[in-house]
Each structure stands twice: as C-alpha cells, then as structure tokens.
C-alpha cells in the first residue's frame, strides 16, 4: 500500500456499526487485548513490533558497534559471528546501523500517526455528531485532502524544510486523515442512534460528555485499525524519503538511506539490500497483521460460503437403502410416486447445533403442503436441504431425500445445479432483495431461460420470458422486462421471483414464507396465483410458513415441526378441527381469527 491508499472505503465501518458495541468481542480494552492474544498471528506481530521498537530505542545500549565507525578492510562482508548482519561498503556494522536507523523510522511513524489522529478523530466525531451541514463541509474537506497526491506536497515541504523528519510525516498525517475521518464519522453516525446514547441525551448529558463517554469507546477500535494501516504506510513513506536521500543526512543511518546505499553497490554486493529492506517489509507487515487482528476482533469474520468446492457434506445414509426403500416403494407404487420423499432427515451445524432431528415427510404431485413451525423449528433448513443450499458447515444425513424419485443425498454441487430450477424451484421471503439489483428483470429471466432451454433462439427466448411474466399475471410484461428490482413493488417482485422459479418448469416448488414480507391484500393475490399455478401445471408446492392463516387459506395438508422434529401431520381440515399434539393446539390458540371452512 502506498501513501494515498489509506482512505479506503472500509467495510469494517459498516460492520462494526451493525454489530453494536454491547457484547461484541472488542467492546472494551480488555476484550481487545484478549482478542489479540487469542490470535497467534496478530499476537506475534504485536510482540515483534514491541521488541523491535524497544531494540531501536535501546540502540545506544545494545548495539555492538558504533554505527558510524568505518573499517574499510572489513567492507562488504556477509554475515559472520563478528557481524551478524554483515558490513556495508564502508565496513560499518549493518546490525548496529539498523538499530540506530530504526529511530528516525519510528519517530516518523509516531509523528505522522499523531497528526492523523489529532485531525481525523475530532473532525470525524464532529462530522458524525454535529448535524448535516457541518457533516457535509467536513466530509468535503476530508475527501479533498485525499484527492491531493500527497507525495507532491510532501516533496514541496521537503524542498523547504530539508532533512526534517517531523514536517513531511505530519503533512502525511494531515493529508491522509480523511480516511480516518471517514471511518470515525461512520461509527459516530451509527453510535449516535443507539439507545444508550439517546438515553444519555435525554438524561441531560451535554454533547462533549456524550462524545467522550459513550461514542469515543465505540470509535476507538475502528480508529485503531485505520491507524495500524496508516503506520505501515507512514513507515514505507519514511523509508522512501530516506531512499531518495531526503531524510536523515548521511552518515547517520536510517532504514531508508540504508536501502539507498545498498542500491549503489547492488552489482557488487546485493546482500546489503536484504537486511535494510527486509526490516522495513517485516515491520510494515507486522503493522498490517496487527491491525487485521484488531479488525477481526471487532467484527466477526465472515463464514466461508458454499459455492465451488466448499459445500455442505451431504453424507451417505446410515442404513442400507434396499431394506428400507423396498417397504416404502411397495406402498407408494399403489399410488403415484411422491414428488418429494424425505425419510429421517438430520441436519446439524458444527458440533452440537442440531437443526433437524429426524424429519420424514412425503408430498405427491399437485399437493400444496404446509410446513409449519416457529423460528428455529427446522422448517427452512429442511427445505434448503432439498436444494443443497445449506451453508458449508452443515452436515446432512438421511435414509432418503428424494426429489422426483432421485435421491439427492451425497449429491455434488454440480449434480444439485442440474436439478435446481428444472426439477425443484424456490422462492423466498424477501422478494425485493432476491433479485440481482444490477440487472433488469428481463436480463435475469433471459439467462434463466437460456440455462434451462438452451436450444431456443433469441426471439423464442424473448417470447418465453414474456410468457413467464404473463403466467404470473404481471400486467404489462413488455414494460416489466426493462425494470430493475428497486423499481418494482413487493408484490410485483414476488411475481417475478415466481416466474424465475418456474422458468425451468420444475415439478416441485418450495415457497419459504412467500407472503410474510408483503401487504395483507397482496398476500391473498400471491396465494391465489400459487393455487392457480398448481391447478394449471400440477405443481407440488411446499409452503414453509409460521402463519397458520396462510395455511388455512391454501394448504391441503399440514406438517407441524417443533425443535427439528415432526410432531403432527394431518389434512388442514383435520388439523384445525381436531389437533392432536399439544404444540399444534398452542399454535392454533396463538393465531387469532382462523375461520375453518
């Protein structure tokens, strides 16, 4: 990274705000230190930095030789017991010069960091807390500072104050404070709306008190991360200025001018490059790793996603299929084979978190089955397991998990991809966020049609897209194809999602809370649509929901889940008129105004 890159748009600013400060790992200094100690790489970096700073400060005490002492008879020697890092072209001990040379380096980092901190933090706090006008002015100034290529200003300053260490580093700090400002402002904005700050305001605390007491602690962590990044940048710049001969005047050593000297003898004695540049690289690395560690401590690291080779383990079933399957098949052969056939499904996430503990169910063609339960009952996990869309740390086992007669246990990602959209479709709860915001409705649907019906030409594909939109009863398909998801209402977006799910003509549709995020009037329309689609295409629909009113409206059969197990299965009429299980009874009791037909 170089000097102008410190003001990155930093995702951590958003993330920290969302986590809040209460309860997260880095909310106190003790928590932060514990977090660093628990992360070996960050901890190692911290130890390294402390060691090297102390060593450089203690140079007069521990350096084996005078850094300026020349001995031409011992020039350009590789490391030996007498000189553990060798000697330079004038016979001076490299190790001693490195120790002394670290002093201007760290002094520069300190001055720069202080300047950045003293400008960035207060301005960021004021921008975040002080109201819109102040915010826009300060943010504009910060962005302006970041737009200036700082190297030119620094060199201009050096033309005047040459061989000065503090001036250029302070300038760097001020110019790049825009990045720190941005982060502090973001955290302040987030913190300002937290309940505890509002409470403090209401109880009469003045703004300075609030800023100091309540907001500064939240800011401290992300500010530290930015400063860690800045330290690395500052060190590299300091070394660069030394390399150009613009910092400490020779013969005094600095890490930068040692690299410069190494450059002069590069043809004869390339070894000199290694200790001089190596120490700068290692120290910069340590700053970076430490600030990464602080960052991770503050916001939980993202889990791995399951695209590509990282997928959930759909393990092979525990009991041989033949013996079990024979019995089930003989029963099923008298009626049509079930579209969805699940026997003893178990899903767990990591050690001990069991989401589904032995679920068995079957749905036949043209049925609308409700999968009911409260949050955490395992209904969504069950449905996602059929699609192979569980996160990478899920372990899925079952005696049988068959979609249209094909057992998907042990399926690879590629095998799942073959059946998704063509055998089994899926719509989810949030239609607006379920459509890629960067592409038009038409673009997404065209790609889906191309995927499932590759032999169509462009005109046929376009017709199919319009047909799909008409099937979900969207009023003007030719207009809708050109729209983006943010231009649609919730109901329209859900219809588009249904069209997308049906593009590959699947026989089974999993609808995961399809109406929960919609207005009540729109809910009825969407449920009507689903019913019509079932009537027309003989579609099997598994409706996952916590809302018994929806079940009463559209489902013929209901399966009730509690804590990952099926507690009751019955037709809708039977379930509502004579519920057997206590849990079912309490669910019905908790739902107001169900009219049983």
């Amino acid at each position, binding site marked *: 990274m170089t*000097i102008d890159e410190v003001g990155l748009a930093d995702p951590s600013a958003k993330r920290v705000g969302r986590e809040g400060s209460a309860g997260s790992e880095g909310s106190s200094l003790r928590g932060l230190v514990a977090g660093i100690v628990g992360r070996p790489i960050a901890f190692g970096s911290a130890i390294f930095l402390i060691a090297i700073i102390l060593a450089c400060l203690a140079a007069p005490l521990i350096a084996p030789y005078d850094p300026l002492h020349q001995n031409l008879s011992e020039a350009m020697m590789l490391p030996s017991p007498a000189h553990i890092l060798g000697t330079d072209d004038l016979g001076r001990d490299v190790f001693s010069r490195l120790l002394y040379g670290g002093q201007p380096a760290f002094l520069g980092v300190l001055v720069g960091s202080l300047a950045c901190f003293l400008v960035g933090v207060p301005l960021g706090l004021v921008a975040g807390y002080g109201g819109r006008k102040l915010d826009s002015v300060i943010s504009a100034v910060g962005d302006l500072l970041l737009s200036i290529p700082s190297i030119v200003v620094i060199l201009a300053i050096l033309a*005047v104050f040459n061989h000065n260490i503090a001036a250029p580093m302070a300038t760097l700090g001020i110019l790049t404070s825009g990045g720190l400002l941005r982060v502090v402002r973001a955290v302040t904005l987030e913190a300002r709306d937290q309940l505890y700050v509002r409470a403090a305001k209401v109880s009469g605390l003045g703004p300075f008190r609030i800023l100091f007491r309540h907001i500064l602690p939240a800011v401290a962590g992300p500010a530290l991360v930015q400063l860690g990044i800045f330290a690395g940048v500052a060190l590299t710049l300091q*070394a660069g200025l030394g390399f150009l001969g613009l910092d400490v005047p020779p013969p005094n050593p600095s890490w930068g001018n040692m690299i410069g000297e*190494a450059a002069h003898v590069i043809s004869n004695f390339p070894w000199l*490059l290694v200790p001089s540049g190596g120490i700068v690289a290692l120290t*910069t690395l340590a700053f970076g790793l430490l600030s990464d560690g602080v960052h991770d401590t503050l916001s939980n690291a993202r889990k791995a996603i399951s695209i590509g080779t990282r997928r959930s383990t759909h393990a092979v079933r525990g009991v041989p299929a033949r013996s079990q399957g024979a019995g089930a098949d003989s029963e099923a052969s008298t009626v049509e084979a079930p579209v969805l056939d699940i026997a003893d499904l178990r899903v767990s996430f990591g050690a001990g978190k069991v989401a589904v503990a032995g679920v068995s169910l079957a749905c036949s063609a043209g049925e609308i089955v409700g999968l009911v339960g409260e949050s955490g009952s395992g209904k969504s996990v069950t449905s996602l397991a059929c699609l192979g869309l569980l996160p990478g740390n899920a372990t899925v086992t079952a005696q049988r998990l068959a979609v249209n007669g094909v057992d998907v246990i042990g399926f690879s990602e590629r095998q799942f991809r073959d059946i998704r959209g063509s055998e089994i479709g*899926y719509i989810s709860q949030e239609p607006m*966020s379920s459509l890629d915001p960067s592409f038009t409705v038409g673009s997404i649907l065209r790609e889906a049609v191309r995927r499932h019906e590759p032999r169509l030409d462009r005109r046929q594909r376009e017709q199919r897209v319009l047909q799909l939109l008409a099937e979900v009863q969207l009023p003007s398909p030719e207009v809708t194809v050109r729209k983006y998801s943010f231009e649609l209402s919730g109901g329209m977006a859900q219809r588009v999602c249904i069209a997308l799910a049906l593009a590959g003509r699947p026989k089974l549709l999993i609808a995961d809370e399809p109406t929960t995020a919609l207005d009540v009037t729109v809910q009825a329309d969407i449920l009507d649509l689903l019913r019509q689609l079932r009537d027309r295409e003989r579609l099997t629909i598994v409706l996952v929901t916590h809302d018994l009113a929806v079940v009463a409206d559209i489902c013929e059969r209901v399966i009730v889940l509690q804590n990952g197990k099926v507690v009751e299965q019955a037709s809708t009429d039977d379930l509502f008129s004579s519920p057997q299980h206590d849990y079912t009874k309490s669910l019905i009791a908790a739902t107001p105004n169900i009219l049983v037909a």
Partner: protein
Amino acid sequence: MTGLITRRIVVSIVVLIVVSFITFIVQSFIPGDPARAILGTTGTPQQYHELVKTLHLNEPVAVQYLEYMSHLLRGDLGSSLFNNEPVASQLLQRTPVTLSLLVPSTILLAVIGVVLGTLSVTAPRPIARIIDVFSLLGLAMPNFWLALLLVSAFAIAIPLFPAVGYTPLASDPVAWAIGLALPVAALTVAGIANVAKITRDGMLESLNSDYVRTLRASGFSSASIVWKHGLRNSGISIVTILGITFIGALSGSVYVEDVFALPGLGSLIVTATNQHDIPVIQGVALDFTLIVVVLNLITDVVYIMLNPKTRR
C-alpha cells in the same frame, strides 16, 4: 447525471487551486532571498533590482499569487531556477513517460487483482491461503525495494531486462515494452494486493446475499454467478479501490522512476526537490493533480454507468 459531472468538475478545479496555493505558499517559507540565490555571487545591484521586479518579490504574497495564476492560465509555468528550461515543455516531455508507467500498471493490477481476489473466495482453501499470503507480502514490501530486488535478479544476475533507461514508444515499441517490464512489475505488486482484498470483500458480500441464493436456487452456473453477477455487484467498490490505487501508483512512480532512471515526472520532482527548484516542483505538482483530476472524472463516469439507479 450531468449534475454529478458538473459537481465533479467544480471539485476538480478547487483541488487544482488548492494544490497550486499550497505549493506556492511553501515557497515563501524558504529562508533567504530567491533573487540572490538565482544570481549567486555574480550580478550587479542593477540586475538584482531587475530580477526582484520581474519576480514581483517585493509585493504582497496575494499579489504574487495572482501573478502566478495569471501566468498559469496562459500556459506559462515559469522556468527552472536551475537550468532556465521552461517548465511547461519539460512537463510535456516527461508526462508521457510517467503515463507509460502508470497506465499499463493500472490495467495489469486491475485484471490480476480482480482475478486473484475472486479466486481467493471461490478456490479451494490451500489456493486461497497462498493468495492471501502473497497479498500480505505484496502490500508490505516498499515498491522501491521490490524494484531493486527485481533489478538484482532479472537485470544483473540474469540479464533479461535493462536495469535503467527508457525507450520512447514511437521509436521502438518492443524496446519500450521490455524496458518497462521491471518498473511496471515493481509498481503493480502492491496495487494487486489492494485490489484483491477489496474484490474479495465485495465478492463475499455479494455471494452471501439473498439474490445470489435465488440465482443458485434457479440453477444458474457458478461461473455466471461469480464472474457475472458477483463481480458486477462488487463493481462500484472495485472501481473505487482502482482509483485510490492509481493515486498510490502515482506516488510510487516517483521511487520507481528513480530506481530505473526513467525520465518522467517523478524523477523530475525528486531532482527539483534536492535543488529547491520551486517552479519545477509547482509545475509537477499541478501536473500530478491534473492527472488525478482526470482520473476522478473517469471514475465518476464509470460509477454512473455501473449504478442502474443513477441511469434512470
């Protein structure tokens, strides 16, 4: 859309003015007498007074600044205090050299950075790990040190590339490219790490989103999901980091030009700093800023194209 562009142009003009002002003010801090410094020990009192008059040295700073700006707007950037060469012509000569270094570097680091960043998310663990480590190392190494290491390895030990020097594109394209190989490599590495990191963050966010789950559930191929949908949605943050990295490369070019003795803007400003040649420093500062301003304009246009909300 025109509103955004107008705003950007206004900001750019402000930035240019600010930079010119800063470098101008800095000059007034130089101890001693500029006229005396130019004339040296030779020069009659007559010549001295003439020079003071020409340089407006006795007038208030504000007047001097206005004089400077009026010359600037006419394309007159003054002359080097050192060798009297007009600054403007030096800038014209040297800017293409610096751009020859910057533009290929930026393109390379964009492509390689995005690919590596995406692979670090989708590839199997060991490869992702290796990419992470390389990114970390790339960011930590000072680019001039990397340049020296490259010279030591590929120009001295194994004489594949020239250690110093520059061949203009017009006279010999092949030599131009070979001569730029090591400098571009040195400049690109740190930038790759930055772009890779932001791409990775953006891709993680996209690939964990609801709409990607819908695309997967609809049977879209992972190639399409990752490289078409995931990348497109990370587009804005990637373009942002590319802009920032370009500015970083601009600063880095100063060192790289020094190591490889490339006759560009960077080596010019370093020499000028050592010689306290203020008009040259001011000229290069403005030139750099102009490059940044043009880049920001391009970035803004790309933003507008990428974000469907602004196109409506």
